[in-house]
């Protein structure tokens, strides 16, 4: 069966599947609309510009997948920590100083040679902000949200991850206020690495569950 979309001729408009394909006119219109909204909210005392800046800056600089990577690396080198992480993820993550909005109730699920986990939020785009930052556009796309629950193996294949039939795939749909992070498998050949070196290997996609952690080839 041909699974391609039909012949083109789509009406003009942004590609709904990517965040960065607005036309300059669309971006300009949105900028103006958002400036007006901000002016109103500031004038009415709902927000202050300095706080808006401080808040956005946090997610640009302090809060991102480097946090989750530290959690993963610690779990790889410290079996007791790993046990705590899998039992009470929120508390274990707080041990490393991470937590807060959209990570108040964390669950960490472990990949093994026989189980592969992958995280989604089909109804909106819930995501564990304190450890992974704000979600990438593909995670929020209709394509990912709709299909990973019904065809996880096909989706993972698109990400370059071909799983054998013997592996059990577990999809986690974040429909409530629990937030999920995947603890990837520690790759072979990393026995001598420090915790910081290990953390540098861990990618955002591996902690969502659409990739495995690899030893970068320039290290091999």
């Amino acid at each position: 069966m041909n699974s391609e979309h039909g012949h083109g001729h789509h009406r003009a408009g942004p590609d709904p599947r990517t965040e960065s394909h607005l036309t300059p006119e669309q971006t300009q219109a949105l900028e103006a609309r958002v400036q007006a909204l901000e002016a109103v909210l500031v004038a009415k005392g709902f927000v202050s510009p300095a706080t808006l800046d401080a808040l956005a800056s946090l997610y640009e600089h302090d809060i991102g997948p480097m946090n989750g990577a530290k959690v993963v690396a610690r779990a790889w080198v410290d079996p007791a920590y790993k046990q705590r992480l899998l039992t009470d993820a929120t508390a274990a993550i707080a041990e490393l100083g991470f937590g807060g909005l959209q990570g108040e109730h964390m669950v960490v699920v472990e990949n093994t040679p026989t189980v592969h986990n992958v995280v989604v939020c089909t109804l909106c785009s819930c995501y564990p902000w304190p450890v992974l930052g704000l979600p990438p556009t593909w995670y929020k796309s209709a394509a990912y949200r709709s299909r990973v629950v019904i065809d996880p193996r096909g989706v993972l294949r698109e990400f370059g991850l071909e799983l054998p039939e013997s592996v059990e795939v577990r999809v986690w749909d974040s429909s409530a206020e629990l937030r999920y992070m995947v603890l990837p498998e520690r790759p072979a050949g990393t026995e001598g690495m420090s915790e910081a070196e290990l953390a540098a290997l861990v990618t955002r996609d591996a902690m969502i569950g659409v990739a495995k952690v690899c030893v970068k080839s320039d290290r091999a």
Partner: protein
Amino acid sequence: MNGIHDLGGMTCFGPILREENEPVFHAPWERRVFAMTMLTMGVVDTLDAFRHAIERMDPVHYLTSTYYEHWLAALETLLLEHGLVTAEELATGTVRTPVTSPRSPLPPEAMVAIVRRGVPANRPADQRTPRFRPGDQVIARNLHPIGHTRLPRYVRGKRGVIARVHGTFVYPDTNAHGGGEQPQPVYSVCFMARELWGPSAAERDRLYIDLWEDYLQEA
């Protein structure tokens, strides 16, 4: 509401397009929308009402606009519905009505503290004793409410097993509509892929989803 946002199980949206080295925000307006939404959350309305405002977007607008435009649309919708702003104010950026915020704007340190601390959605467990225990067989109810729900269509009527009791959480179906928090137990429920998607799914694959107790019945 059985809306376009309830995407689980559709297979018509083509390949997943990824962006290399994606920035946190793609444009200044996204950055401001993100921060304004977070700063007014809980003041304008609940997180559940905000999610439902996104769900009420026109389906085509929903599918053709990006994530932060969803947030922008929902924030404007709630501000307008609660009479906190007027359409004219949004169009002009000029305020005609008196200041209406119920509290003074948060200073940066206070907001950063909230980000670090979080806003937990769980509540004391004594309000309602969990009906189910891990290992119990359950069926997700076949409910089709007019308003907000976090019970997606693809699990309704399906049989699963309680994997974990998460605790007691605010109930979105009431909280989104001014009906109060009405906290109740939330469970991790495990469904076999074949129960959800029939014989073409892989035999050993599973799906876990978090469901409020009122979404469940004994199997």
